[in-house]
């Protein structure tokens, strides 16, 4: 599902990733752990082709990212669900409109958009907030909204950037249970976190990123 081979990246002179290599198979649930500034978000941005590596090859969902052009990029991104660290909601749009956005972008028929938005709002316990703005709901509800938006198009791969950041252990495990349920349905899940203990508690494969390189692999 994900193949990262000898990938390097730097912001101007500052090297962030150096010859990083790893693989994630279809249907796996993998944690990418590492301290702040280790390059987790950068690696994730490379995986959804928001950044271009200075060296190495990346292949995601069977697509070699070096061969992506402007025409094929939207098709590639529609196969991936993204949970951003800062959520990236449209602040002037309601919870419902934010949730419906990926489906609208995929030109889904309005009838089906309504159906799936209603279903996800219900599943995530956000129905009573559907007309509220994202700033008017709690942090945990925003997180659930972000996950719902990422998976509403039924992607094959979910990339979640620090989805438990700032949550206590109970709420973190709640989010992880949600992601685990998605993984159980066959979705490949790739999660970044700074909380190694949480990753170990979840009993999933862990890749540790430190000082721009991979330092640790665990096979559960």
């Amino acid at each position, binding site marked *: 599902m994900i193949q990262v081979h000898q990938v390097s990246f730097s912001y101007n002179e500052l090297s962030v990733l150096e010859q990083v290599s790893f693989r994630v198979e279809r249907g796996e649930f993998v944690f990418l752990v590492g301290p702040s500034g280790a390059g987790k978000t950068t690696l994730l941005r490379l995986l959804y082709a928001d950044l271009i590596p200075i060296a190495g090859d990346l292949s995601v969902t069977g697509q070699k990212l070096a061969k992506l052009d*402007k025409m094929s990029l939207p098709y*590639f991104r*529609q196969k991936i669900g993204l949970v951003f660290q800062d959520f*990236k909601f449209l602040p002037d749009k309601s919870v419902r409109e934010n949730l419906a956005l*990926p489906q609208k*972008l995929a030109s889904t028929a*309005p009838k089906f958009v309504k159906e799936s938005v209603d279903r996800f709002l219900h599943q995530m316990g956000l129905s009573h907030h559907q007309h509220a703005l994202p700033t008017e709901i709690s942090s945990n509800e925003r997180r659930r909204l972000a996950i719902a938006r990422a998976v509403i198009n039924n992607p094959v791969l979910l990339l979640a950037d620090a989805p438990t950041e700032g949550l206590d252990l109970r709420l973190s495990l709640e989010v992880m249970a949600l992601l685990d349920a998605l993984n159980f349905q066959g979705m490949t899940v790739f999660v970044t976190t700074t909380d190694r203990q949480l990753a170990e508690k979840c009993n999933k494969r862990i890749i540790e990123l430190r000082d721009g390189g991979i330092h640790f692999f665990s096979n559960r």
Partner: protein
Amino acid sequence: MRYRLKNAISHITCAGTSSLIGIIGIGFITVLLTTLLLNHLLISQQSEFKSYSPTLVAFLKNTVDEAHGRTLVSQLEKNGQILAVGYTSKADKLARGETEFQDLGVLIKEAFAETQGVNPFPASLNIYVDEELITRKALEHIVLEIKTHDEIEDVMLTGQGQLKDRLRDSERTTLAGIAVASVFVWFIIASIIKRSAAARSEEIYLMKLLGMFRNYLLTPFIVHGLFLGGLGAICGLGCFYGMLYVFQTQLGGLYFLTIYQIISVVVAEMLIGILAGFVTHRKFA
């Protein structure tokens, strides 16, 4: 389609007051452009109205009889630059006076018949020159040459040539005006669309990350361009018509563009809007 339209409306509202200022700017340019177009149309209509009148009229002296006059016609026709020469006798002129000067012509004709006095109308030669091919200088040269004949009292330029010159000048000015106006309208529309896109840059970035197709963004850019171009043109034409209506009583004889010309102005500015939207979209998509 509904989402795309909603997206377009949201794009237009993002520009806020810039859109309003842009519409006023485009309207002002349209008023200037319409002034040039109307001026050109008026000259062109005058020119068409006078297209059958001769370029020059040479008046013969009273002493010249018809036979002599006709000899002069054949002499003048030998000049390669003159297309044709027509002879109008004193008697013809007197008869024509009735239609041309109406009551006064009738009065003159009756006085001439009763008294058998001197016919006040001179015999004349109507001289036709191809004005498309001839320059003003060459025309003046022909006039001087005709004046060298002793039979000629005076030579008059009917103004048809001058009108053609004015028509050519106004054609050039109007074309330059259209080009300048197009550039300004393009600049205004592109600036406003860019401003609107900049205000939505985070939203556009997010939509790209979520798999937005390039043409999803194309719709709001083009609709915004259409909106600015179309509304600006309609406002400008409306203002011009209003001014024309107010001043019509003082100036008189003025009329507005025809419906086809109005549609052409609006469609042209809408097309500029579409193109500006399309080009700007390529920078953001």
